[in-house]
């Protein structure tokens, strides 16, 4: 990310030689991923939310809100998703004012790419209320509170968790005498429905080419040293949903395949971990509900 300024040649050499022999500054191996810390349901006024932290660096907060919208004439029996990512200046002074605009667009595009089209895995028909007229629009708003490298991965981890946490309000559709459709939104949160097929939503793993090798889950310094980057989006059935190179370098075909393979394997592990965490979270809440205890939302920082 050029917006983070420069890295000295000495530092670059240090990182490159480290990668050559399989050592990284924070003691990880090349394929090691910082275990993501994910918390669900932090923002009370959202329909779903999650926060993901990678190591001490990257920290993103994602909220999902359902909003009524006009159906898209091209796909009138489906709802849609709208993604916006904002880098807070709390992460870096460079994000002040309009400084983050380019990066915001780039990150929003990256998340949108994974979540729109058939690869998102979501059942968008569930979001349709009156075909051709009204549908739910899932507004996915992300804030990058701290930028410590590998933000695209963190954004997708948090987004997937937030989607799992999302409850779509129930609607009751009635037909009026003149054939027009009317509907009411059920205000009871207890009746809201979870999204279908959230486990099909893919995750992204980014491999950074540094020197002649690659690393997964790069830190900020490593990202600055990377000549090329490969974002690989994989879903839980092991299918590659999207892949894109970015950065100004070239990748040898053998290394490309190795990077794809490593990213795919890592994505599988991340997906398993996250599915397990979501399941635990849900059973916990269900158990509390069954006992009649209040379900308290965790606080964001305190």
């Amino acid at each position, binding site marked *: 990310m050029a917006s983070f300024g420069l890295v000295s040649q000495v530092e670059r050499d240090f990182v490159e030689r480290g990668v050559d022999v399989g050592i990284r500054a924070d003691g990880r191996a090349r394929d090691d991923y910082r275990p993501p810390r994910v918390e669900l349901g932090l923002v009370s006024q959202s329909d779903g*939310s999650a926060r993901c932290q990678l190591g001490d660096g990257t920290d993103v907060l994602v*909220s999902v809100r359902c909003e009524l919208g006009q159906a898209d004439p091209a796909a009138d029996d489906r709802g849609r998703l709208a993604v916006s990512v904002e880098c807070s*200046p709390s992460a870096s002074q460079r994000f002040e004012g309009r400084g983050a605009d380019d990066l915001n667009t780039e990150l929003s595009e990256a998340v949108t790419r994974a979540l729109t089209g058939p690869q998102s895995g979501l059942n968008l028909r569930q979001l349709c209320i009156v075909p051709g007229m009204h549908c739910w629009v899932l507004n996915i708003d992300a804030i990058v509170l701290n930028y410590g490298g590998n933000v695209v991965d963190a954004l997708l981890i948090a987004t997937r968790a937030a989607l799992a946490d999302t409850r779509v309000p129930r609607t009751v559709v009635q037909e009026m005498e003149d054939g027009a459709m009317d509907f009411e939104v059920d205000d009871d949160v207890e009746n809201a429905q979870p999204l279908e097929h959230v486990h099909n939503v893919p995750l992204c793993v980014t491999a950074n080419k540094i020197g002649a090798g690659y690393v997964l889950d790069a830190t900020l310094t490593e990202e600055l040293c990377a000549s090329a980057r490969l974002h690989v989006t994989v879903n839980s059935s092991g299918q590659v949903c999207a892949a894109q190179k970015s950065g100004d370098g070239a990748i040898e075909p053998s290394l490309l395949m190795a990077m794809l393979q490593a990213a795919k394997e890592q994505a599988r592990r991340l997906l398993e971990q996250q599915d397990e965490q979501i399941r635990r979270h849900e059973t916990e809440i269900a158990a509390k509900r069954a006992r009649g205890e209040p379900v308290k939302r965790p606080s964001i920082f305190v």
Partner: protein
Amino acid sequence: MTTVTTAVGGVASFLLFFRAVCSLFIGATSFAMSRVELLNPEGLRVDGRRANELRKLSCKLSPLQHADGSAYIEQGNTKVLAVVYGPRETRHRAQVMHDRAYINVEYLVAPFSAGERKKRSKNDKRLLELALAVKQTFDSVVMTTLHPRSQIDIYLQVLQDDGGALQASINAATLALVDAGVPMVDYVCACTGGCVDSQALLDLNHIEESSAETPDLTVAILPRSGKVTLLQMTSRVHSDQFEQMLNLAMEGCRQVHAVLDSSVRDSMQQLADQMTHR
């Protein structure tokens, strides 16, 4: 046909608004649609507080490690993160002041922070005004003359707004400045006050704040000297009640000060413990 469609649209958007308002205080079950009763005959408010009661206030110092100073405040459902960088070199040459530091405040509101989702541009005039209010508050409190030709950045991120985002921002900024080790003459503690049926209320929530007939007062004081550094009020109120409101709000500021001060002391104690144990 067209008229029907628009009617449906109107109903839908109204319902959405209603849903949004509802979701703000899920705890409050009895909620009259027609007119909100801000103070019931027993003297309790919509969220069950008494007139002179603050919402639960909790705070945390340095939640973000990388910044020079940061603080997070939760006041009821209002949540604000403040981050301070500096004193550091000024970004733009025009901002250099040869005898003191320049305080730069950026006030950001998360699109999901309020009841209705709204994406605000960074140049939104209302946000700029709030940022200016915070800047002017701290201009007189931070000892800027100690750091000439430099800049202190205060970034405020409102994550959730259930009334009183400005007071929470000022309180969070105070903590973040303390955390960053920026010299100040005193804490700045802010609190809101209002007035319903000639009864002064402390610390307004979103429903009370947005109600048309409640005056809405934000006051920030230096608790030791009792000096007022910020005073903002909208709507109208009789001068007798104004004094009552102001006194209540200033009393609230002192309560806020106690919470902020104890959290600073706790966090410094923790830091000291860590250093001695090492």
